[in-house]
């Protein structure tokens, strides 16, 4: 049990330590970028950026999961069956859209700042969850459902006690995919005004300061690895 949760735990500690204590590595960065005065990104603290980044991804993951799972459940019920073909098609076509394009499209509609990012993250992030919810629910053995109904379970109970638990694995995999993509998209979100771990990278690219870029990149990479190993442990 400890073995399983050790990697994410250790990674998380490393992530927080580095966010809080990046200045410790100043000499390293000076070596990388000898020609700049300031080598540690200072406009916002790394901890703040990390926190913001995680908050954005977390909110969009929660809203996205609720919407996608609800939509998936609706489309697989008798009442919503008419909508199933369209919903399936949307879920698969939507994944062809590059995330950065979806993010960019949100700006003309919603302006700059956190709002377009959140909307783009939610809309784009719910697609893999929706696809996996549909696949998971449709993959439940029909004889099991028939037996449950035939024995006297109400349709609601069948959904809660049979279908969702059996589809749970697949849905979780969808959430994992969604969160991984969203971490990457949120990083790019700094170009539209959200304050995330992508800020030092963008600032570094604009000013030609490789040290900044490195700092941002390392933290983003660490965050992604931590979250991924968390999901790995949960499975």
């Amino acid at each position, binding site marked *: 049990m400890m073995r399983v949760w050790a990697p994410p735990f250790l990674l998380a500690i490393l992530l927080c330590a580095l966010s809080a204590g990046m200045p410790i590595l100043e000499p390293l960065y000076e070596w990388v970028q000898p020609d700049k005065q300031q080598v540690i990104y200072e406009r916002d603290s790394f901890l703040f950026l990390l926190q913001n980044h995680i908050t954005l991804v977390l909110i969009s993951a929660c809203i996205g999961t609720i919407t996608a799972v609800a939509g998936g459940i609706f489309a697989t019920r008798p009442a919503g069956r008419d909508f199933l073909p369209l919903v399936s098609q949307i879920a698969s076509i939507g994944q062809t859209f590059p995330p950065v394009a979806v993010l960019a499209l949100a700006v003309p509609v919603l302006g700059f700042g956190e709002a377009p990012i959140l909307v783009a993250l939610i809309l784009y992030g719910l697609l893999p969850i929706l696809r996996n919810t549909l696949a998971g629910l449709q993959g439940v053995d029909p004889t099991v459902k028939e037996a449950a109904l035939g024995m006297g379970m109400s349709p609601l109970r069948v959904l809660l006690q049979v279908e969702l638990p059996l589809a749970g694995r697949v849905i979780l995999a969808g959430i994992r995919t969604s969160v991984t993509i969203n*971490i990457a998209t949120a990083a790019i979100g700094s170009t539209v005004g959200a304050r995330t771990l992508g800020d030092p990278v963008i600032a570094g690219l604009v000013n030609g300061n*490789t040290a900044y870029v490195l700092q941002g990149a390392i933290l983003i990479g660490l965050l992604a690895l931590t979250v991924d190993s968390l999901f790995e442990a949960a499975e």
Partner: protein
Amino acid sequence: MSIARPKSALSSPNRVVPVLGLLALVLVWVLDLGAILPNRIVPGTGHGLLSAVGWVGATLVTGALIGCLLLSVLPLRSRYLTLLILVSVSLALLPLLLDVFAARHLPENSPYARSSIGSGFWCLLFLLSLMLIEIFGRLGSGRGFQLIVLAGICGSWVWLFQGAGLESLSLVREFNAQPDKFEQALWTHLALALGAVTISAGLAFVLALQMIRSVAWRRPVLGVVSFLQTIPSLAVFGLLIAPLSALTEAFPVLQTLGIRGIGWAPAMLALVAYSLLPMVRNTYVALTEVPESLADAGRGMGMNERQLFFKLKLPLALPVIVEGVRITTIQAIGLTAVAALIGAGGFGSFIFQGLGQAAMDLVLLGALPTIALALLADALLTTLAVSLRPKSATV
């Protein structure tokens, strides 16, 4: 995915199209169809449906939507065919709305004034497209037919956009300002994305063969490529800058080849790295999918390993490999757009330039072609994959 539809269902009303149609009706009346901008930077004044296209236009649009509603509810013999004609014609002629809008409202003497597409138009476009998808699904038409209809609609749009009426559209203005840059961005984008896919396809093939030959390679290879995939692209691009700059400083000869810390070199490297996971996984699965019993049957009849490979394993593996190429290509097109941040060019440069200048239609000029490229690649490669499937699967 096909769903069996008994003949009797054709007479039962469709519930999806009315919902979409009703939503479109509400949104197109509530939201702005377009806006007039006095110049590139200042946000303009929005115009609702009635103001934008007048009574005639508004009636046509409302009429078309109500037509869709009625057609899906009334019991008709060829309901879906009629709906298809109505919706596809509406989609094809949609830019005319913008044409009329510009003609009515564009101020006469301002060379900088321009029109811009409003959220009402976008919603109408989106919902009509959803209706089209639903109708295609219900008709059960073949891919060829669907592609023809789509090509017709796109052709109509291209033709309309070349006309003088839409010249004042902000989007068109941005394009006209730098048509060469647009073309260059197109080629750069394609070169990067397709180049990365090709290189990773070759690498993946080699790796997959190696993984088949020796078990010890399997987990490490898969582990490394999955690891690469988890790290967000921006981070990878960023991480490659420092070592590549150091490398090119140490070996100036590389600079003459155009390799630098930023630009196409780190972009290509990262793109190949990202493309490896889907390609390696798909190629490996494709080549190992053939059950040993089939292979044994072939051997028993006298085929040698080489014949077995080319006549049995490869044809069966091809559809799965093409599917892997499809996923990888779509991913690469999206990542190339991000690579614009490190100077690689491509459509992403329009997106980020636009964001930097707060010029929304420049952003659109970058985002829309990226999406179009991805959808095009998807359509082409899916058709290819379907045509490569063994014919017996359709019995």
